[in-house]
């Protein structure tokens, strides 16, 4: 049972499962580091998944579908930015409403554009067809198949994790974004607009969330199904928290969930006892709760996350 092939397949499946969660989690990290609580990743992902499938179907080109998903994800997230930053509304409320709006608007547009609810037709080519094995590196045992023989968005996720780590810690803009979430007053005092930094943070999470959604519909699968995010946006939140609001931490936490999910499926395949399948199905979620509960004490959120920042003008 514990043969080499099984282990490798399990690890490769882990990457597949983790990618949309990792992307959404990294996006959420940027948003929350700038001070805006974002529970709307689920909604942003479903918008991205929908747009990717529709545009890829209409143009026949999945890359254009991906670009459209990224764009519309960002566009959709601007609603959250506007509500929380400019109108000073409660972050959680705004996020919750956006999730509901996303489900409804994708269902509505589905009828309008596709003509029937449920599932779109398969896209002509999915991004999954663009599997690229990096010459040389893909031959490394185990790691080669996991990291160097993958499909486009999976590669992007690796790159983005590294990029955002560098961005947050090594660039001036990244510093300003972090400051907006830690000590916005100090930031505003030196003349950098906290509003702008927070808009930026939310927008980035929208772009990345759109890409995460696109993975679900046109890379991991070949069509859009209503509700296909299945709670992954919320798992991404858990990954962000267990990962200490750090891109690499969030990525590792997403891998952990992806691993648990890939494991429980294979455990079901091999299970010869009468254990109810529900126990297997909830395994990844239970592990996530345990991880969050265990790690949350060491995990420190940005000091000013969730707090409103308002500039009062005397001449208003």
């Amino acid at each position, binding site marked *: 049972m514990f043969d080499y092939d*099984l282990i490798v397949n399990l690890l490769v*499946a882990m990457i597949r499962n983790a990618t949309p969660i990792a992307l959404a989690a990294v996006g959420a990290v940027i948003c929350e580091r700038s001070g805006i609580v974002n529970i709307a990743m689920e909604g942003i992902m479903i918008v991205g998944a929908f747009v990717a499938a529709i545009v890829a179907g209409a143009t026949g080109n999945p890359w254009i579908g991906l670009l459209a998903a990224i764009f519309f994800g960002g566009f959709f997230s601007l609603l959250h930015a506007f509500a929380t930053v400019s109108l000073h509304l409660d972050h959680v409320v705004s996020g919750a409403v956006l999730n509901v*709006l996303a489900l409804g608007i994708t269902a509505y547009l589905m009828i309008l554009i596709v003509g029937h609810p*449920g599932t779109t037709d398969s896209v002509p080519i999915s991004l999954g067809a663009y599997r690229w094995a990096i010459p040389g590196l893909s031959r490394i045992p185990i790691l080669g198949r996991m990291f160097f023989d993958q499909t486009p968005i999976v590669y992007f996720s690796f790159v983005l994790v590294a990029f955002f780590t560098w961005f947050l810690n090594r660039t001036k803009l990244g510093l300003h974004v972090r400051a907006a979430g830690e000590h916005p007053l100090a930031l505003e005092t030196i003349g950098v607009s906290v509003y702008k930094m927070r808009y930026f943070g939310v927008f980035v999470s929208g772009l990345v969330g759109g890409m995460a959604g696109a993975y*679900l519909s046109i890379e991991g*699968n070949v069509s859009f199904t209503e509700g296909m995010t299945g709670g992954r946006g919320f798992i991404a939140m858990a990954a962000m928290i267990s990962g200490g609001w750090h891109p690499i931490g969030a990525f590792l936490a997403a891998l952990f969930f992806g691993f648990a999910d890939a494991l429980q*499926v294979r455990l*079901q395949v091999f299970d010869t006892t009468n254990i109810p399948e529900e126990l297997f199905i909830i395994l990844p979620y239970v592990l996530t709760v345990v991880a969050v509960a265990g790690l949350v004490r060491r995990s420190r959120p940005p000091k000013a996350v969730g707090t409103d920042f308002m500039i009062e003008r005397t001449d208003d």
Partner: protein
Amino acid sequence: MKKILSVSVVLLLAAAVVFAGGQGEKPAAKGKAETRIAAMATDVGGLGDKSFNDGAYAGLVMGKDLGFEARVIESNQQTDYIPNLTGLAEDGSDVVFAVGFLMEEAVKESAKMNPDTYFGGIDIGGDPDIPNFQGILYREEQSGFLAGIVAGLMTSKYADASPKLNPDPVVGVVLGMLVPPVERYEVGFIQGVKYVDPKVRVLSVTVGDFADQARGREAAVAMIEQGADIIFPAAGLTGLGSIQAARENGVLAIGVDVDQNNVAPDTVLTSAIKKIPESVYVVLESIVNGNFEGGTKVYGLAEDAAGLAPFHGFEGMVPQAVKDAVEKAKAGILSGDIKIATSRSEIKDLIDK
């Protein structure tokens, strides 16, 4: 100025919540004697599942020549069931169908609250105390059995018939959730496989969701990695992911509920069907004829409501011996010689997983 803006955004967000709460229906016109209204509320899978909910809706549409106008509301979550069903009844529908085992409590509640409206429940058992409700059950185990016969023979004895089959005698079932209709499909399938070849292993994975294609795909992949060359997804929309996974990994699949060959014509060998549209039509007919019966009606092979879909592109590939085995099994089921169990507990010794 800011205040006006805040208020308008709040109103917009509030409108979004209302507007996002599922599809609206056309304004209700009280059902007159000439145009009756046949309505349904879907389960959370919604229309477009290419099987279950679509089948029920197709039945309503078929009712047009009986003078019925079809109406449908999609449920977004389980708490929508009762509001949707009673809403449809109060809006003047002559008959309201609930689709799916998960809606059992809701439809019985709604039927009791609206004794003047007929109610039908797909995959739901009837209740002698509720005369205006007819429960419609199916013998999925019969369709599953026939599918198992095809799978059991093709995966092992006739694996040479197609490059998509491998010599490993392994097949796989993907379940959406372990609700009775799905369980009947699975249990029937296992018995069909073992009936023709006890050596064949049947793997089984439950996903826990009827609308998660990604998980359906993973479940199928995990079984394909273990040598399964025929995947039978009894999982609604989740199963579409399983079929795609079968397609991409060069193996075959068997569809469920309706003829799913068009989902992937080079992959879907046949489908285990239950004729939901026709059974819905029978209920509509009974309303028109004035002989609607409460209680439970069970549809199976004997009522021509169960069976296998055509092989389509695989017609030439499937050996005559397999087709003969299917016909023989059908005769056996109809005559009563072949008895098929309907729950996992009854076939404990057959399950190897």
